[in-house]
């Protein structure tokens, strides 16, 4: 056993209102420089939809992530020699048109237009060429399924689980259903971007598991962009370097929640540290599709077990980090309650961002009589769900519907129980019966309710001490940097010739 700490996240999708505040907080903080205009390290997608960049989930096109060949993990992108052969032209790289051409408006026209018969308008101009452009797509062009059904109808997950007739029915206006999927870098345990980088410029920080691109080592070979199945590594066309979500590590190191999480209006985001067994990474990532989620849960270690604590301390994890792991909201959602699932586990990167699948689009089925709540079977609504369980399963459990149903049963049982408690139109015995069927307890449901609905800032973001001051002292005298230059870039990050 080799105990390591990983800063991990849970996004509670039922609470996401799709306001994109997270995206803007991130954009304003990190990607407002030349070359990064098109990047959204944090983006919010409407599901079903084709996402950003378009159809990124279609790995037959983009070849991201890992595949299992004869029990061995291989990059779907190809072997090492193949990658080197393709280095001058990467055939699997999404181009700007697969993202979108970033634009702004020529606001000066509003002030400087001469007298005329018409109101002046601010024309859209490309942020890359500065020339007039027609806006044809954007990073969330299909927000709320607006405008055109083409995006949703081409969702690779939907195509996988529904035939044409089913999809036609799905898009009947009265049937229409969608939810939001906010995405950042998953800071995977088995990151394929790291593995795909020819230079070895991408690395995982040992202490907290944050995946970073060394801007000084990166040579711009672009293989990480293709290697990441989530397309969360981006190529800066101006600097010639790859960039990605850094989980706001400068904020984390000073005890602040990442900008996207801090600004989250719906309070859907949770951050905490998990202890895991690093010796089991390869074994876990090599499991058959159906066992991946369970195996990933298994390698997350119980921070209350004295034996694990002992091992963790022996492996150099600070006592304070173990304490943080015990209070981690992520541990509760992922391991204790089994409510949060990884996104597309079948890509085998062991993503460490987990999602509580949305219950609302599943259960708000309207019948002719109106809202239907409790029939003889509490969970009948799951079978007649508007958003089919198998669609959710193709997103969050590599197709294992039972795993998603177990989550939904617990969420529903909690809702029924709290309704019995607060509204009282459901008899308490029946609510308890629902809890039993969902294999939950009153205490557990109460805890879930508290953390989901009432949690304070400190409960939602349990940031472990990053101990960078200790790290720095090991190598250099911290006073060396005082009044001198700081510990970051020595030169301005200017583009090479």
């Amino acid at each position, binding site marked *: 056993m*080799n105990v390591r700490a990983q800063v991990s996240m849970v996004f509670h999708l039922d609470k996401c209102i799709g306001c994109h505040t997270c995206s803007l907080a991130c954009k304003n903080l990190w990607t407002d420089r030349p070359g990064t205009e098109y990047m959204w390290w944090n983006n919010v997608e409407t599901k079903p939809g084709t996402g950003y960049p378009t159809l990124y989930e279609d790995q037959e096109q983009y070849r991201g992530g890992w595949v299992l060949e004869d029990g061995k*993990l291989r*990059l779907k992108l190809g072997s*090492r*020699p193949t990658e*080197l052969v393709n*280095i*001058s*032209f*990467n*055939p699997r*790289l999404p*181009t*700007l048109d697969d993202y979108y051409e970033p634009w702004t408006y020529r606001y000066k026209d509003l002030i400087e237009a001469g007298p005329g018969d018409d109101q002046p308008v601010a024309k859209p101009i490309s942020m*890359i*060429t500065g*020339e007039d452009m027609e806006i044809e797509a954007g990073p969330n062009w299909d927000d709320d399924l607006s405008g055109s059904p083409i995006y949703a109808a081409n969702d690779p997950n939907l195509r996988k689980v529904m035939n044409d007739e089913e999809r036609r029915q799905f898009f009947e206006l009265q049937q229409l259903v969608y939810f939001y999927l906010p995405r950042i870098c998953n800071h995977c345990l*088995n*990151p394929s971007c*790291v*593995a795909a980088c*020819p*230079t*070895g410029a*991408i*690395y*995982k*920080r*040992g*202490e907290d598991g944050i995946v970073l691109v060394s*801007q*000084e*080592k*990166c*040579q*711009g*070979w*672009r293989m990480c962009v293709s290697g990441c199945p989530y397309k969360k590594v981006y*190529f800066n*066309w*101006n*600097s*010639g*370097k790859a960039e990605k979500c850094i989980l706001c590590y400068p904020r984390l190191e000073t005890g602040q929640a990442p900008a996207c999480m801090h600004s989250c209006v719906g309070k859907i985001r949770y951050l905490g540290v998990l202890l895991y067994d*690093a010796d089991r*990474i*390869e074994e876990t990532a090599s499991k058959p599709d159906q066992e991946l989620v369970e195996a990933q849960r298994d390698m997350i270690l119980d921070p209350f077990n004295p034996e694990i604590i002992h091992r963790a301390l022996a492996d*150099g994890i600070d006592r304070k980090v173990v304490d943080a792991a015990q209070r981690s909201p992520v541990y509760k959602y992922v391991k204790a309650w089994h409510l949060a699932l990884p996104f597309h586990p079948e890509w085998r990167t062991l993503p460490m961002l987990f999602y509580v699948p949305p219950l609302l689009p599943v259960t708000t089925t309207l019948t002719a009589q109106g809202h239907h709540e409790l029939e003889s079977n509490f969970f009948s609504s799951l079978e007649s769900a508007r958003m089919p369980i198998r669609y959710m399963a193709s997103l969050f459990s590599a197709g294992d519907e039972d795993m998603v149903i177990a989550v939904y049963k617990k969420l529903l049982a909690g809702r029924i129980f709290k309704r019995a408690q607060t509204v009282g139109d459901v008899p308490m015995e029946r609510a308890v019966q629902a809890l039993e069927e969902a294999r939950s307890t009153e205490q557990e449901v109460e805890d879930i309710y508290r953390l989901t609905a009432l949690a304070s800032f400190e409960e939602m973001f349990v940031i472990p001490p990053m*101990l*960078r001051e*200790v*790290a720095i002292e*090991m*190598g250099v005298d911290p006073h060396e940097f005082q009044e001198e230059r700081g510990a970051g*870039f020595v*030169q301005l990050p*200017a*583009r*090479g*010739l």
Partner: protein
Amino acid sequence: MDGFLFIAFPYVALILAIGVGIYRRRRRPYTYSSLSSQLLENRKLFWGSVPWHYGITLILLAHLLAALFPGLAGRILGGRIRLLVLELTGISLAFYALFGLIVLIIRRLPTTSRVRHATSYMDGILLGFFLIQVATGVSIAIFERWGSLWYLRTAVPWFWSLVKLHPETATVTSLPGIVRVHFVLGFAIILLFPFSRLVHLVMFPIKYLWRPYQVVIWNRRTRKVESTEVMQ
């Protein structure tokens, strides 16, 4: 003049290439990049970049290997058939590279909107030098027959005299003008190497073939690079 072009200039070019190259690598690592523009434009790049890179790499290797092992090269080229085959291969590769280069130049023209915004003056200079260099190379191969043979008796002794710090230019100064232009331009490109995106040439990540897939860096353990998950 010959003394400057064939003795002083090669030395200056080589010293700057190595010196500035090392300085830039160590002190300005952020500026080392292939500066790919594939994100902005994909289709023309395919028809330009692939022929150019494969063509020019193989031709450069042939020049380099022949200069390093002139005796062996002479024996290989000794047979008439072998000479013909190798010369034909070389000239096909040269045309292949030239085709790619022309596509790349068209791609960088100011009329193609996006790529021009990721183009520096140095890129223009490089493309210009490459065009002249490949064009002179092709015409030498066609009009100054069996270049692969006389290269061994003219340019190679000159290279080695430079290496041995005992410059001897007699074998090259009497050659036709176009050949001398090709030689001097070759060193001019070496001179441009540390000041341009050409630095990506020495960064070819051959280590990727054997490095472990996963990279974990510890800060507290004095920045030791660890690769525990050995997945080859």
